[in-house]
């Protein structure tokens, strides 16, 4: 497609779609369209892949120098650890004091992307209000941040950063701050699956959900006669557009319906135009096909992201955030099997698929995927799994990423050492990087100005570096 055609179509669609919104002046629309055109080549998107439940960092990046491998195996009684011979140490730009880690052997594509410099590991980040040491915590000079160990609070801690009661996610707030250059906010923040999503809504920007099967229709009954009556259809339209409701629940329920009515057309066009784009592999002879591909809801969600990104002109965005939830990382029991046979196979296939799809569109430098999780897990086995911890590990993937390196310091697997807190039970990893530093680095790449960062990440200035350098 010639770019000029695309721009023309886009502009027409945009004007048509926006007319439904009401309240926008023609001048604002024109400026919006012009702005979108001007920045068509500078599209950027962040994809937040939430590993819901608390990723076990020690079963993801496995210590594999002799000393620390022996130490982690000793801690993980009853958990089936990969053999040392199956672990290939990753290269790092700093020596990490001789400590080495390897990706879990199932994470082959992830490792390839790391080796190609397209994927970085952020190691030892967690929910921190300010820098702490083990001594600070043991002597009471510092306290654990609230609710380390609670799933929902951990989710809040990495996706909202607000005080208790905060309802805005940093993805939505980042898009709020970019509104001047990304004025059509209808599709600025897209959620897929939408479980436990604390990331996507801002003060202004509201998440819109995209269906992984590509369904985007109007409210049934509004298109054409309803049970033979066009009057009935018109009355339904009137019911859903009522503006005189006073009850808060009535108003909010109507608002969700109205958001469907004003968005379905453009979303439907986007899905219709991308029906055959970047299909999920259907070759049943592929290794682990049944888990890695057929049942891979993460790959399906990432394909939906690909379809939205490919439709950025239709959706009229030059900056976007996406949220995907991947469940079942709360591996209290049967951990080795669950992570390896279910989660890692799917995650690895999905990451490889997504990077290849972006590359095929020439957009790998414009899109960065990152993982989050509410906490890492406890060092010591509970028999066949691990419990809620504190510090953990994440991946950042994309052409813009300064990959092939570990950001953060590896520590010795020694529960008596400085890397662990063991005051109130089994040892948990003390974070050396704050979630806010990790996420501010990502938001900055998306385009959030430095001056705005502390308003989204309120404790950022308590830490020495506000950006970690992986982007």
């Amino acid at each position, binding site marked *: 497609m010639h770019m000029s055609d695309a721009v023309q179509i886009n502009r027409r669609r945009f004007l048509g779609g926006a007319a439904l919104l009401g309240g926008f002046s023609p001048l604002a629309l024109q400026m919006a369209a012009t702005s979108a055109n001007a920045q068509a080549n500078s599209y950027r998107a962040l994809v937040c892949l939430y590993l819901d439940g608390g990723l076990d960092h020690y079963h993801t990046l496995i210590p594999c120098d002799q000393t620390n491998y022996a130490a982690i195996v000793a801690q993980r009684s009853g958990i089936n650890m990969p053999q040392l011979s199956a672990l290939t140490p990753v290269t790092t730009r700093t020596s990490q004091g001789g400590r080495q880690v390897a990706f879990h052997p199932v994470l082959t594509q992830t490792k390839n992307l790391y080796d190609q410099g397209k994927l970085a590991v952020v190691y030892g980040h967690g929910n921190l209000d300010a820098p702490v040491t083990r001594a600070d915590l043991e002597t009471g000079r510092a306290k654990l941040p609230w609710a380390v160990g609670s799933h929902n609070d951990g989710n809040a801690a990495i996706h909202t950063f607000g005080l208790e009661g905060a309802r805005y996610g940093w993805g939505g707030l980042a898009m709020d701050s970019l509104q001047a250059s990304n004025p059509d906010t209808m599709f600025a923040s897209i959620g897929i699956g939408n479980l436990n999503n604390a990331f996507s809504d801002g003060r202004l920007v509201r998440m819109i959900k995209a269906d992984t099967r590509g369904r985007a229709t109007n409210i049934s009954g509004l298109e054409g006669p309803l049970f033979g009556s066009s009057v*009935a259809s018109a009355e339904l339209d009137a019911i859903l557009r009522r503006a005189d409701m006073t009850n808060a629940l009535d108003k909010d329920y109507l608002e969700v319906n109205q958001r469907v009515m004003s968005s379905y057309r453009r979303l439907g066009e986007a899905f219709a135009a991308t029906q055959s784009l970047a299909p999920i592999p259907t070759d049943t002879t592929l290794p682990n096909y049944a888990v890695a591909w057929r049942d891979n809801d993460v790959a399906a969600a990432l394909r939906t992201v690909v379809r939205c990104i490919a439709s950025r002109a239709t959706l009229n965005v030059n900056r976007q955030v996406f949220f995907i939830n991947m469940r079942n990382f709360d591996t209290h029991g049967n951990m080795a099997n669950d992570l390896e046979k279910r989660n890692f196979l799917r995650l690895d296939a999905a990451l490889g698929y997504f990077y290849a799809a972006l590359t095929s569109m020439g957009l790998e430098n414009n899109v960065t995927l990152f993982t989050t999780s509410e906490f890492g897990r406890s060092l010591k086995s509970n028999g066949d799994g691990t419990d809620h911890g504190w510090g953990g590990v994440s991946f950042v993937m994309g052409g813009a990423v300064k990959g092939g390196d570990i950001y953060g310091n590896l520590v010795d697997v020694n529960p008596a050492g400085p890397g662990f807190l063991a005051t109130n039970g089994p040892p948990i990893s003390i974070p050396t990087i704050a979630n806010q530093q990790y996420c501010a680095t990502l938001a900055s790449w998306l385009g959030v100005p430095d001056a705005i960062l502390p308003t989204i990440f309120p404790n950022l200035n308590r830490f020495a570096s506000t950006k970690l350098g992986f982007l």
Partner: protein
Amino acid sequence: MFVSFLPKARVALFLCAAALLSSCGGGGGDSSLQSSGQGVGAGGSPPALPPPPGPNADKPATRVEAARFLNQATFGATGADIDRVMSIGYSAWIDEQFAMPRGRTFRNWYLEDGVNSNRAEYLDPNSDRESAAWFTRVTREPDQLRLRMAWALSQIFVINGGTLMGGTALPVWMDLTADNAFGTYRTMLEKVTFSPVMGNMLSYLWNRDSNGAVPDQNYAREIMQLFSIGLWELNQDGTPKLDSAGNRIPTYTQADVVGLSSVFTGLALATGGDRKGTCIGYNGKPAQGEPEYIACELSVWNWTSTKAKSFLGVSIAALDVAKLPANSEATIQAYGRKNIGIALDTLANHANTPPFIARNLIQRFTTSNPSPAYVRRVADKFVDNGNGVRGDFKAVLKQILLDPEARDPSQQDKAIYGKLREPLLAQVHYSRVLRASDGKGNVWAGSGGCKDYHGVISELERPYAAPSVFNYYRPGFSPASGEAARRNLVVPEMQITDTVAVMDWATYVKQTLDRGGTGCSGGARRQNTFDYGELLPFADTPTVLADEVLLRFAAGSDTATLRANLVRAIESVSGTTSADRINRIKIAVMLTLLSPEYRVQR
């Protein structure tokens, strides 16, 4: 922990994978938002005063009032139920429900009454049979209050579907919640703790404190956060206690989690010959072998932790095993069992439990944002039912439903009152009024196509299959923006009412009105049809039809505008054939079901 006997179960029963939004500060049943300027009507009344006399006299003044009550207390008002409440009054109706026989079990339906009940089908993970057991019972059977309470309890004591020991765990949990719906909280906590379904769900089955490992903390944490006391110390009215600096006060620390985790050790299924004959199998008869065990109680084995332990201010001394004579397994087991009893007593007697559970239950029946006074009145009934019994669900339920804030419109702040109807409640309500049935007395709802859940009303809510122990939505969820946010309200059900969900609801209603509901069992499609008999007598007069539809679905809402919409739409179908009558009903029902007057129950 080892899992030699149930690899499938461990794979399929997803653990507490989730975490929810704590956009309101999170913890189970977050109460932080409820104290801000709400409940103006009842908010100021002290707890000791009896409900004021007036409009909440025991008999409803109108059929609309009766229907409104039934929509809070059942899965949806029908004409016959409205007549009954008009005749005997609210309190007698509740007593009648309390006295009603337990009714057939879900497991019985699942095993005996369904089509082609057999082992292969029982083991079929793609069958809709377990949800059909639920839909059939709640849609068609008379013990509505018990079933509605069971559904409410299932959203506090949450399992998330999947399989257990090769078979489905769902009917077991449906029965457990129904069995205990009119019992006591302490008994419920006991049954939950000793159920293999929860043992598997929260990974304390086979939990132990030895072999170089530490006890699994999963249950210790979630039983406190979600099933009993919540994260923050509460006043009796559900508002958070504050310290001198104005901060909320945590109810427990990580040390309490660790201490409690060693109590929940040693829990396991009985072995070998012991369990034969004592456990119920998939076919409702004594189990003969794996994987048939679905309704056993867990027992405490002698590898329960014998170390000293402390939690929530309670200390339990160690058991000196070295000093015991040989063959003291029974002593050790009794020690472990007693410790679990102490833990459950501690949680049931904790000062937080009454307001925490009271507020959660109020949200499931009447309103998302109860006034503190309403919470306190219900919590007081939890503390003492009037006869010195703590945690009597019957007394709690009666207070929830008969409280002035539930019954008396003048006690409600209309701008905030009510709850968003969750997809399943809306779906069952609709099936009840239209008398859905497959012709054999069963109600199916699931995938029409088999093997793929594309016919469901909402991907985000299937019966007894929440994504995690954090339920489908959180009690403290508040949307990021909009009117509820502006007013600092919580709207739990809004968490699964997103753009795709409202699209799906409209599609579901339209498709089922077109074709009836469908489900899948034994690889075959099951088909419901509707019987419009409940509404057909009114179909010739548009105003009457509108009134009767609104009575059943939207009682309690101001329906003046909606009624005018309905009348115009009904009048547009002018014929007098049977098909015309049915189309008028379909139009009235569809417009109503999509309206906020319906989706907000008040």
